[in-house]
């Protein structure tokens, strides 16, 4: 039986002196190798440190680049003007008021007509008048003068009148947004030594800018336009993130209300109820794969299924939301499943043991314990969806939208798509900074989401 017996093999043991000699020899060899090996050890460790250093340096470089480019863009050139809402120029009827017995349609029609009338008012003249109070010769060089204020501000003034027609005939000092090129010149984002041909502003306008800046009329003020306005192409200085922000918010809400419940439900089914067989194995593999499918493939899915087959509107947040939902689903499922897996079976047995049904055991005992983990996973999934760009491009979201969407069925963009659109703008000197500012906003949102997730994990997660 004892095949492993070893007595016979050990008969050839070396005698003691041999052994000692051999040991001495070996010890010498070991000592000789030490220096080389310790150098090797140091080198290896240094390589590791260098790798960590490189990775950290990349993080630092990325953030420094974005912050240094983007932070100045939160302050934008504004011009302080005494605006007189001249009744000579604003010649319009009284603002319509709904009369008794008037149908809604009829009233809306009268309102539209009034607004059209207001639309014909030349607010540029009002702005020009205001500028000429600061620069007397402005009237003679209207083109140069109008380059000081961004063109979108005339609509701002129009909206003020539309809100409250009683301001006609009064005057007030307003900070208007300066033109994008004024901003570029003031911040030195263009080489001031370049010749006239390469400058965006005429020599006269540039002199005015310097003069007004010295007088304090032109100033960098915190840019509310960046947050309050939708995108704009005609008035670059007033291009803002409001439309993209609302679009992203809508999509995130859709993801939250679809991906999280569906994901959690399917995780519960797969982890707690599903029989372990070939089919559930397949589903598991399928979900793991889905988590690693390139995001652009989800965009293709959205383009063909939602847009081509279901005839849903192009560039609408509802489609974007659905695509991102499908993309986030595997993340939520995997996170929820691993949380459920970590909950010890003893808790289920305890519930079942006192006569709870399986459903009761899961919903009353297991799920409440899993909530912190589920929330953490879901928030991380939503943060990931927030930064996703590629699939949105394929469902038409790369088109220019100059309004804030009111419903998820209207055209919209999203924050990352807005970044994509802005980085391609031809006025690089202005938009490099503005794009960076948009990135800062996006990163700030994502970092806060992640911080919430980390906080949740730190404070509520139980380790079993």
């Amino acid at each position: 039986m004892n095949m492993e017996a070893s007595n016979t093999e050990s008969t050839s043991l070396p005698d003691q002196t041999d052994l000692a000699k051999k040991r001495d020899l070996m010890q010498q060899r070991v000592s000789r190798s030490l220096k080389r090996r310790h150098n090797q050890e140091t080198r290896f460790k240094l390589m590791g440190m260098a790798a960590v250093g490189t990775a950290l340096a990349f993080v630092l470089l990325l953030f420094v680049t974005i912050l240094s480019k983007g932070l100045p863009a939160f302050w934008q050139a504004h011009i302080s003007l005494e605006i007189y809402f001249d009744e000579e120029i604003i010649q319009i009827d009284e603002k319509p008021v709904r009369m008794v017995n008037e149908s809604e349609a009829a009233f809306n029609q009268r309102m539209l007509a009034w607004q059209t009338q207001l639309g014909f008012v030349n607010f540029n003249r009002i702005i020009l008048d205001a500028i000429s109070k600061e620069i007397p010769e402005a009237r003679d060089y209207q083109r140069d003068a109008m380059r000081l204020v961004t063109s979108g501000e005339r609509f701002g003034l129009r909206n003020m009148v539309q809100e409250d027609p009683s301001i006609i005939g009064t005057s007030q000092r307003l900070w208007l947004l300066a033109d994008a090129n004024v901003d570029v010149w003031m911040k030195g984002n263009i080489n001031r030594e370049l010749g006239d041909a390469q400058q965006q502003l005429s020599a006269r306008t540039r002199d005015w800018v310097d003069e007004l800046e010295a007088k304090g009329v032109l100033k960098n003020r915190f840019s509310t336009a960046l947050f309050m306005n939708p995108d704009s192409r005609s008035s670059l200085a007033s291009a803002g993130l409001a439309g993209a922000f609302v679009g992203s918010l809508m999509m995130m809400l859709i993801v939250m209300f679809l991906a999280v419940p569906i994901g959690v439900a399917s995780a519960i089914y797969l982890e707690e109820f599903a029989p372990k067989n070939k089919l559930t194995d397949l589903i598991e593999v399928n979900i793991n794969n889905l988590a690693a499918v390139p995001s652009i493939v989800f965009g293709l899915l959205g383009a063909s299924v939602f847009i081509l087959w279901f005839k849903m509107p192009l560039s609408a947040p509802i489609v974007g939301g659905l695509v991102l939902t499908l993309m986030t689903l595997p993340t939520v499922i995997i996170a929820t499943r691993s949380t459920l897996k970590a909950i010890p079976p003893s808790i289920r047995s305890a519930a079942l043991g006192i006569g709870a049904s399986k459903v009761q055991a899961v919903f009353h005992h297991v799920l409440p314990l899993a909530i912190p983990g589920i929330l953490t996973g879901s928030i991380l999934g939503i943060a990931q969806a927030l930064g996703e760009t590629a699939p949105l491009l394929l469902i038409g979201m790369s088109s220019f939208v100059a309004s804030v969407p009111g419903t998820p069925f209207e055209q919209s963009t999203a924050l990352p798509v807005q970044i994509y659109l802005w980085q391609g703008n031809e006025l690089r000197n202005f938009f490099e900074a503005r794009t960076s500012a948009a990135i800062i906003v996006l990163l700030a949102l994502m970092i806060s989401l992640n911080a919430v997730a980390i906080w949740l994990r730190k404070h509520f997660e139980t380790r079993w």
Partner: protein
Amino acid sequence: MEQPTMGAMQMTFDDKKESKPASGAIKMSARDVKVFYGDAEAIHGVNMDLYENEVVAFIGPSGCGKSTFLRCFNRMNDTIDIARVTGEILLDGQDIHDKKLDVVQLRAQVGMVFQKPNPFPKSIYENIAYGPRLHGLVDNKSDLDEIVETSLQRAGLWKEVKDRLDSPGTGLSGGQQQRLCIARAIAVSPEVILMDEPCSALDPIATSIIEELIDELKGSFTIAIVTHNMQQAARVSDKTAFFHLGDLVEINATREIFTNPQDSRTEDYITGRFG
């Protein structure tokens, strides 16, 4: 495992051992060794000498610090971040914590076999050749072949594996794996071999083979073995040290310990009142 009561226990002592006295020279000695895990003191100042060509067994209830103490002899506690060792441990009269003595060199002289067989996920040959290659002990392939063969022979494994030296070491049975690990340890010609419960993961037959092997090896090495199995201690060791709560309670010739313990705790332990 249940500790047998005194009546049921049948101690078998190897009478050969009695006739052959320890060769006398002190190989390693520990002086006032303390080990701390963080702030907690796990070993409270232990003194012990290991003599050449002698087997010392460390026994004691689990958590008594016998493994921790064993690991001091080749500074394996260095690999645990929070562990700290104070006191003096001498190898041939030289302090092993001395800056001049490299831990690499120390471990080449003081080898170790672990509780669970832990062959590397490499071939049997590569497992044995690992140490000699690391330390640059050989210059050519035929020398290395020779070391592999003699090491396997001395570990009593050569016959079983000589035809499959290229197959993975993890494919062997538990007992074979442990002998492979012993062969791996002796391939670098250490002077001391530390064994940390080498048989605890093995079945009785594999255990008895390892025990025979220890007996063979004692001719060439100083051996310290931690065991939770008192019969094993009785079978293989010349001396037995009883540890309790981080203290070395008693060390003496094995027969003395088991037949005539000086300390009541030792007696309680070997008679199965606790442990």
